[in-house]
């Protein structure tokens, strides 16, 4: 398939005795929004972190851009700049203000001029609705604002795919919406996205495919309507029923 952006084959990862990923196969197509759901400790975040090698997997292949990221000879930094990542805890650079957070990597990695980098930063910050906070101190923003800056920062590298690691889990319920709205807009623009999330409503509404993970394996995946209304796997049904009771999605 030519429109595959990312293909994961037989990915395995252990932390000491604990087997976190037990052979994951996953394919992400261009423009697709894939939500990974599952209970805590099921390996969702680890899978995401293995994709851009923040965790080094023990075995398997990660095909991206015609290269295997698990190959030790591969230029990791060159590939990483095309894979945007948004973290649960935002991880804005504390020593930089908002715009410098966005321009640092484009200027040091892609070696583009300051003017160009700033232009792109302002454009992306405007997209995420932070045009008024361009020169703000990044440590003084609210959680929702920080996460939107983090998204803008990742966008400034013009990635081919964006990974979201529980982007709203550290936010209080009232401001979850502002981050999800930005993500929805991004999805609508055709960005390829892999989202680890507990926001079932978001997963149902926005994603093209939902992946349910449990104890280090993918138990079920498919169309969100299919999964949320008629899950085939017992474990999936059990997991979702708890959410459906609480949230009435």
């Amino acid at each position, binding site marked *: 398939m030519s429109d595959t952006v990312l293909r994961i084959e037989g990915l395995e990862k252990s932390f000491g005795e604990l087997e976190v990923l037990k052979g994951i196969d996953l394919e992400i197509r261009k423009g697709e929004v894939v939500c990974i759901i599952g209970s805590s400790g099921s390996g969702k975040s680890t899978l995401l972190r293995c994709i*851009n090698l*923040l965790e*080094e997997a023990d075995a398997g292949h990660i095909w991206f851009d015609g290269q295997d990221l698990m190959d*030790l000879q591969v230029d*990791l*930094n*060159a*590939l*990483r*700049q*095309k*894979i*945007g*990542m948004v*973290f649960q*805890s*935002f*991880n*804005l*650079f*504390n*020593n930089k203000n908002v715009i410098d957070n966005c321009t*640092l*990597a484009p200027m*040091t*990695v892609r070696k583009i001029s300051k003017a160009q980098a700033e232009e792109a930063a302002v454009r992306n910050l405007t997209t995420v609705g932070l045009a008024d906070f361009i020169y703000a101190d990044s440590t003084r923003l609210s959680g929702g604002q920080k996460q939107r800056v*983090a998204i803008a*920062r*990742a966008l400034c*590298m013009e990635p081919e795919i964006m990974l979201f690691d529980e982007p709203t889990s550290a936010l209080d319920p009232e401001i979850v919406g502002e981050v999800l709205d930005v993500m929805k807009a991004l999805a609508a623009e055709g960005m390829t996205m892999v989202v680890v999330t507990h926001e079932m409503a978001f997963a149902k509404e926005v994603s093209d495919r939902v992946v349910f993970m449990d104890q280090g394996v993918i138990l079920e995946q498919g169309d969100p309507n299919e999964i949320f209304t008629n899950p085939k796997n017992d474990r999936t049904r059990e997991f979702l029923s708890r959410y459906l009771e609480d949230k009435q999605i």
Partner: protein
Amino acid sequence: MKKEANNNRLRILKAAAWIAGIALLIWCGIRFAETVRVCRDLDKNPQSFGASMVYMTLKGKDMLITGVWTTVRLALLGTAIAFVLAILLVFLRVQEPNKRDKEAVKALKWLASHFARLYVFVIRGTPMMVQALIFYYFGFNLFKRTGMTVTEINHVWSFFISGLCTVALNSTAYLTEVLRGGILAVDRGQTEAARSLGMTNWQTMLKVVFPQAVKNSIPAIGNEFIINIKDSSVLSVIGVMDLMYATKSVSGIYFRSLEIYCVAALLYLVLTWLSSLLLKWLGKKLDMPVRGIPSSN
């Protein structure tokens, strides 16, 4: 009602204490001025403890001023040089061989990290007095081999220069550990975010981690400066004309020890106190936490 009465009583007590304190201060001031006036005209060390302190301080003031100035320079320059060296050394210290590095790079990183470890291990594990003597004689012998005369060597490898080297190289070890602590205190997420954007390890260190680590370390670097004010006193063994050496000299001239060492203690106390005030002020300006006068190592 009762509480109010208590408050009033407390207020009166406080006022009385203030008045008493100020009166005491004025009295001390007058006594001090008087002693200074008397001592200035004396040509013999007076018997009274306080008067002898004042007498020797006045007579030896040129030496003591040189001493204070040398001590301040040693601490200031020593800490500044050490800071620069520590930044280099801590960079070596935090190198970790990675699975994806080439074999040569792995070996280099191992070497760099272990060199830094060894340096810190040796310097922190030996007294500065011994280091001072070793550095001094090492330099002396080195220059001697080039065929220089003793006068020439004393000019190039002076007591002050070798003393400054000692302070700087000693502090480098401590500041390396201070900076390493500062680096470890930077959240791992900062590194992960930078790496996820495609920045190299070196770029991440330089642009993201180091600036934050240095900021974290500033209070501890100030402490190291204060420690150096006090600990540079051991350099008097190689003949650096610091405050300690000056005190010893004055004591030797006027045959009185306890009095002049008390003066030295007071001068050191004033130096460290002023420095900690200065650091507190700087810390406030830079919006950073500050600690009191630290203990020596």
